[in-house]
């Protein structure tokens, strides 16, 4: 087995553990490359079936192409999709001008936590990776969130020998992280090897492309000539800038992501 094949095998193992050990499961689908790979892995794990709904936390500020792409894929694959928004905050005029972290907190964390409660999820499958940023680098594969969706990151449970956190009080839930050990370049190599369709915002347009997708006002494009997957891989081999450097919320404060994620942010 090569590296990508063993990553795939372990992710499938994790997805099957989640299906077997957790009650109501959902998969957070952000339309980006990571959750698209997750969708693919779920199809492999469950032999073409998808035994849980997909969830999109829509901030209302997403890049418009993302929404049209989302609806197209859902229709093509016949997915069960839950779209959830913090309508109240949006009606009150919440937006990045109120402060980036405040905005993320309301439109992403708030909507996500509200959605978890509304649908009573015991497990949410999320495509975060260790190499994205510091607080994610310390994550567990099965990561518990309490009844207020908080992450007790200074007291995480032992996780050894593929024995994940599957015992927890009612009202808590588990964030399942099947891609935790993948790197950005692994994701692209897998997309290439498996020929997985991805949204074309990742490919260059007028000398710029998105490296990471998020909300339109807070996500920048990077300078790039990469117009297909193998060119992206070549580009990544030679870059030493961070994947999330274009994401404004990360730059707001050195511990911004830790703070956001403590409260339930993905």
């Amino acid at each position, binding site marked *: 087995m090569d*590296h990508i094949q063993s990553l795939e*095998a372990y992710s499938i193992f994790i997805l*099957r553990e989640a*299906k077997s050990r957790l009650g109501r499961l959902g998969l957070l689908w952000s339309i980006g490359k990571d959750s698209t790979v997750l969708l693919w892995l779920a199809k492999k794990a469950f032999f073409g079936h998808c035994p849980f709904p997909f969830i999109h936390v829509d901030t209302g500020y997403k890049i418009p192409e993302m929404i049209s792409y989302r609806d197209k894929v859902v229709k093509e694959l016949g997915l069960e999709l839950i779209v959830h928004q913090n309508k109240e905050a949006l009606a009150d005029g919440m937006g990045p001008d109120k402060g980036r972290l405040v905005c993320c907190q309301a439109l992403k964390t708030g909507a996500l936590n509200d959605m978890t409660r509304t649908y009573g999820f015991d497990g949410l499958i999320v495509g975060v990776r260790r190499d994205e940023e510091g607080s994610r680098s310390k994550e567990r594969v099965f990561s518990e969130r309490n009844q207020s969706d908080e992450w007790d990151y200074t007291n*995480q449970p032992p996780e050894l020998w593929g024995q994940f956190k599957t015992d927890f009080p009612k009202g808590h839930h588990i964030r399942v992280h099947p891609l935790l*050990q993948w790197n950005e370049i692994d994701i692209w190599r897998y997309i290439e090897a498996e020929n997985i369709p991805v949204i074309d915002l990742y490919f260059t347009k007028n000398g710029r492309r998105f490296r990471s997708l998020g909300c339109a006002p807070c996500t920048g494009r990077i300078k790039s000539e990469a117009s297909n997957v193998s060119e992206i891989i070549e580009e990544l081999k030679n870059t030493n800038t961070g994947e999330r450097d274009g994401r404004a919320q990360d730059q707001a404060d050195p511990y911004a992501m830790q703070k956001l994620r403590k409260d339930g942010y993905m």
Partner: protein
Amino acid sequence: MTNKAQYMTPEVKVRERLKLVFTGHVDHGKSTVIGRLLYDTNSLNRGIIDKVKKISAETGQPFEFAFLLDAFEEEQKQGITIDTTQLQFKTEKRDYVIIDAPGHKEFLKNMISGAADAEAAFLVIDAARGLEEQSRRHAHMLALLGLNQIGVIVNKMDLVQYDRMTYEKIVAEISQFLANLGLETSVCLPLSALSGQNIVEPSPELAWSNGPTLIEALDSLAKGTEDDLSFRLPLQDVYKFDDRRILVGRIEAGSIKIGDRVALSPGRKVTTVTKLAAWLARDEKTRAHAGESVGLMVSDEFFNRRGEVVSSAEKPPLVSQRFKASIFWMGRSPLIPGHHYKLKLATSETEAWVSEIIHLIDSATLDALPPTNNRVGFNEVALVEMNLSKPIALDLFSSHKATGRFVLISSFDVVGGGIITWAEDTGDVKYGFIHGQLKARCEVFEEYYYNADEMAVNKIAQEKPLYTIGDLVPLTGQSYVYPEFFDIVIFRDLVAVKIRAGQVADILPLSDYAFQGWPLVNGRGFGVMVRSQDDWLRAKADLATLTSENQTARVQRWLDFNTYRHIPIGVHDYSI
């Protein structure tokens, strides 16, 4: 398309990948060594480095390489690693996953989480301080986790003026300690993480060591494989999304191909693999290896469930409910013998308790100590005897790692881990009573019913608990009523059980049992018709020596089905 063809071609050399953990006492420089290694080899992206630079500018502190890994605010403020993390790194030879582990005693559980994932380990020792408590404890944990590739790094050589004697003294001491644990020291080297000596380039100050640089030391470690072992696949689930019935799981050892005869344990049912199923036709294969997540289709439809182990038919795992294990305790409250825990071994979950703490092991000296107050405390290691409420498939850790280790759970938390060093193989026998070495099968509480469709008496399949002294038993079922006080004599296993006020009061060898006038039943719940000690001695002599010729007469003479049992009508598909 050309890309994919290449990806599938066997002659493409697959780059090797090794998972490596850095362990050792707090502050001896683990995070700094890793940070320096990644920094000097340009393995980090600018974003992370800039962030740490910004933090040191804001706080007026010098640039801390450790902060490249210690990402939490709390870690940076306190200058310690709280939780483990993993980073990727490559040399010309191969790829690495580098795992940083905390050295603080409080966070031993996080060190274990990191180290349990590794294939090889480095012990980092501060040259100025030498071996400290956690240096030894970590070495001990590495041995327990089954890591046998251990390298030694003597760090902070700048603090001892790069002195060779200091280095050699530490190496001798730790090598001896590792040898006592049965571990060989794979490689040793001196370095200074802070000044970047001996990391990537050989250091002039450390020229006397003639030794490898850190990069060379990494590359010198060998990678093991689980591929040559006999086949093990702990069942995760059975899927029936469509008309296929697929057994899924990850191959933990060995390999499997279509046509192989396999056994499913603990039941040891044997069947044949007919297909390795996949979503995409291009993923369907005829053979699969250790590490792969597969879907097996087999020729026989048994009732299969998670927790069973699929193995080669010739070399199945042990089936056991009593074994000895070395355990490490991570629980805040101590391990108490007799206390029930949930045991998770591969994909199985079973109720378990410790029947005996054989001894504690002092992590500093490796001496066997008698347990204090018959407890195993936080961060302690012990050899114990475990009992399970039902037999499961398992292996000795020395033969198969993945099926020879387990974790223990109390309320919601993993509180301990262990590796199996000895196990009693009970094969397919399911016991109902256990007390120390005494074990007996029990059909006393089985339920029967008359199946009106089939016009036959059927038994209801049910989970059989394992009773021991002090347990309550179900005196009344749908097809039986026992008195509150009675005795059970089990001839097959030569065991007697006394039930008093509905509780198991004693489990004793049949030879020690004396009839005291309590109602008597046999191992199946039939009344044994004796009224005196004399009757009992005759009944015992008769029933202990049954042959096919004499059994009808003797069974009819001494046993009566109807005393405590009756056969209700099953109402499942009842129609007249």
